[in-house]
């Protein structure tokens, strides 16, 4: 009987449920509704992100969504399977370039100019791309990345631990060089090329079925801006990604992957074929990365090969460690934290810059922190447009903050934001007892 035992589980179905309790179901529904209303610009709700991120808050948030999808994949490889990788940016790049080769504008592929024949005017050249619709290039970008992941996985089987991390660093550099080798796909190494827009077409027709990259009226009722449409589209895909990842973790496959993470030899002794599951882990994680890379590139519109650098991979490591490795809620928390903190800092500094003239503690703080360019001003944050030099702009301070956050979280809270949440939850569950 389940009286007085609120968390007693009497069947495996209950144990494996995504949201085991009624409260969790309710909270998640509420969260989804709030997110929806925020996206629609509901008056009071959208004021909250506006306060943190400024009036155009939907842009950084939408930009974060593809990275959240990639982070889900990274969590499957690193958090669930336990294979440390720094090559996630490479797989995102594979997906993005598959997307641009299939969906990008261009003549027939055979008409592509052989590489390096004329390095001079890359922008004026026809660039390769088949111009196919999104329902082809989006899944294909994931499949291509997964295929590359399967191709790489034998190396991952051989080496382990930090050696694997370094090998995957090598992948990123090889990827960057490939971007340099094929300018007709990748565009100019510095300025990059354009990606297909996020429009839903049936085939190559001029007028898309659903134009996500234009403002419009939906169902004759709701007026949606371009940003809102893309926000909802990417949010839907992220939701699908979360459900898939969550389901993967609680099935037979997920348990096998976790067994390999916990002790690979023991897993093999128990009958989990190590190589097959490591390969599967790489494939699934790269699939997520590929789809996310394609979405990220086409949301941003223009990417250069430099964007798929080691620092993008480090972003995911930071996301996982700050959020909490191995959990999907933690991955999402980490993504929001890592990707939006720079925006929050920027908004805060801009707000502070307007307060320099005011009296009181805020004015003092602004005068101490900021340098506006007047002489005798020694604040460490520059608000001017000086490119470099000592008072650094917020852009560069954000890197410092980011690095320090990684260090602080690892030292003081190794389980990340998710660990903090668990602590708070357990405290209230046990209240008024201490254990």
């Amino acid at each position, binding site marked *: 009987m389940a009286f007085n035992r609120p968390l007693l589980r009497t069947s495996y179905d209950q144990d494996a449920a995504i949201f085991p309790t009624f409260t969790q179901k309710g909270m998640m529904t509420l969260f989804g509704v709030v997110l929806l209303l925020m996206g629609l610009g509901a008056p009071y709700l959208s004021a909250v992100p506006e306060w943190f991120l400024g009036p155009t808050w939907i842009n950084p948030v939408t930009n974060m969504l593809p990275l959240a999808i990639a982070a889900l994949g990274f969590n499957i490889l690193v958090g669930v399977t336990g294979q*440390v990788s720094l090559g996630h940016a490479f797989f995102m790049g594979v997906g993005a370039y598959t997307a641009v080769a299939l969906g990008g504008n261009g003549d027939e592929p055979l008409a592509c100019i052989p590489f390096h024949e004329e390095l001079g005017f890359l922008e004026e050249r026809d660039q390769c791309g088949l111009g196919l619709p999104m329902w082809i290039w989006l899944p294909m970008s994931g499949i291509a990345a997964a295929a590359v992941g399967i191709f790489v996985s034998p190396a991952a089987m051989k080496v382990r*631990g*930090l050696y694997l991390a370094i090998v995957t660093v090598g992948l990123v550099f*090889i990827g960057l060089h490939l971007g340099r*080798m094929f300018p007709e796909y990748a565009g100019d190494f510095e300025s990059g090329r354009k990606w297909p827009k996020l429009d839903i077409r049936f085939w190559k027709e001029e007028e898309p079925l659903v134009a996500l990259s234009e403002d419009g009226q939906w169902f004759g009722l709701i007026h949606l801006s371009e940003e809102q449409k893309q926000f909802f589209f990417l949010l839907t895909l992220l939701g699908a990604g979360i459900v898939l990842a969550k389901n993967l973790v609680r099935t037979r496959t997920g348990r096998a992957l976790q067994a390999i993470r916990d002790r690979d030899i023991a897993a093999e002794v128990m009958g989990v074929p190590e190589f097959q599951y490591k390969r599967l882990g790489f494939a699934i994680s790269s699939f997520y990365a590929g789809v996310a890379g394609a979405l990220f590139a086409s949301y941003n519109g223009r990417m250069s090969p430099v964007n798929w650098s080691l620092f993008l991979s480090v972003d995911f490591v930071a996301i996982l460690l700050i959020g909490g490795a191995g959990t999907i809620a933690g991955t999402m928390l980490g993504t929001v934290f890592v990707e939006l903190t720079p925006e929050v800092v920027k908004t805060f500094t801009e707000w502070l810059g307007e307060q320099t003239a005011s009296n009181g503690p805020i004015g003092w703080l602004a005068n101490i922190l900021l340098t506006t360019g007047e002489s005798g001003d020694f604040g460490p944050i520059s608000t001017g447009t000086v490119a470099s030099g000592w008072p650094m702009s917020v852009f*560069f301070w954000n890197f410092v903050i980011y690095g320090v956050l990684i*260090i602080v979280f*690892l030292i003081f809270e190794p389980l990340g934001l998710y660990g903090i949440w668990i602590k708070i939850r357990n405290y209230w569950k046990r209240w008024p007892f201490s254990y």
Partner: protein
Amino acid sequence: MINAALQFAQVGTGATFIQTLVKSLALGSVYILIGLGFVIIFKATQVLNFAAGALSMAGAMFLTILLADGGFPFLPFANPLAPEAGENPSVIMWFVHVLIALAFAALLGLVIERITIRPMVGQPLFAMAVITLGIEVAIRPFNLDATALEGRSLRVPWGAESWTLADAVVPKSYVAAMIIAAFAGAAILLFFRSKLGVAMRAVAFDQEAAMAQGINVGRVFAIAWAMGAALAALGAIVYGMAPFPPGGAVSQEIHPLLALRVLPVIVLGGLDSVAGAIYGGLIIASAEVFAGQYLSQWNSTLGSGYSTIVPYLVMLFILLVKPYGLFGTPEIRRV
């Protein structure tokens, strides 16, 4: 095929070969210096130091601040040894400045070890490696941005001068790089014979047992980080000398990536092997330089700058055969 072989023979005159060999030995010296920095830190503290890039560049920055700016900003006194503006220091004074810059780099290493590594003793290897990634990200803006990097000369006294040896041009900097690396390598080997070095080897073998024998493990950690940071800085300074790509200055494009280019070296040799860093440095550097020289006719096919990924390819193939590098200690895997 025959055609290609003929072309190969034409490129490969004796002078070209000597120049390529000298260049690969010089680049190998740089790799050895930075690689030794990695290995000492990994051996003593089990930390893969991803912050080596920022540390090495910080060391080179210290040197240019001392020499070109004549002292640090925000300090009331200037560098009394600084040369006149626009003049290069004498060779001895330059090396004195290098030593001072290395001391500052070592101090930076000590501070980093004390603040971020010491609290993490006993944590998983990956967590420690990621901490150093955080350090790299946090220090990097100070190296790149805060100091307004344009035209930061290292004031190398011999500049880009060179000797001519049997038609081959041998830059003085390349010879200097080899001499510096030889000195550093010899110093490291002697260090491991000293009392402190033996203590470090004991700590590398088993931290708890070493502690039980009365070794001050914390001090060993601190010394390892100071040495690692100083070696990385020395590598970056040597790489800043004239015929190397940065051309006698600290470069915003090339220096931050230098330490990442050394990763194949230490993986090839084995993360915890001093001999591995030396052999690895020589193998990787000669693979890179010789490929850059003798495959240059296929530049259009391979893409410009292909020689920079040769180390990674060599690393991948060797790791498939020997997963712990040539001299690395295989990890004992328990069920």
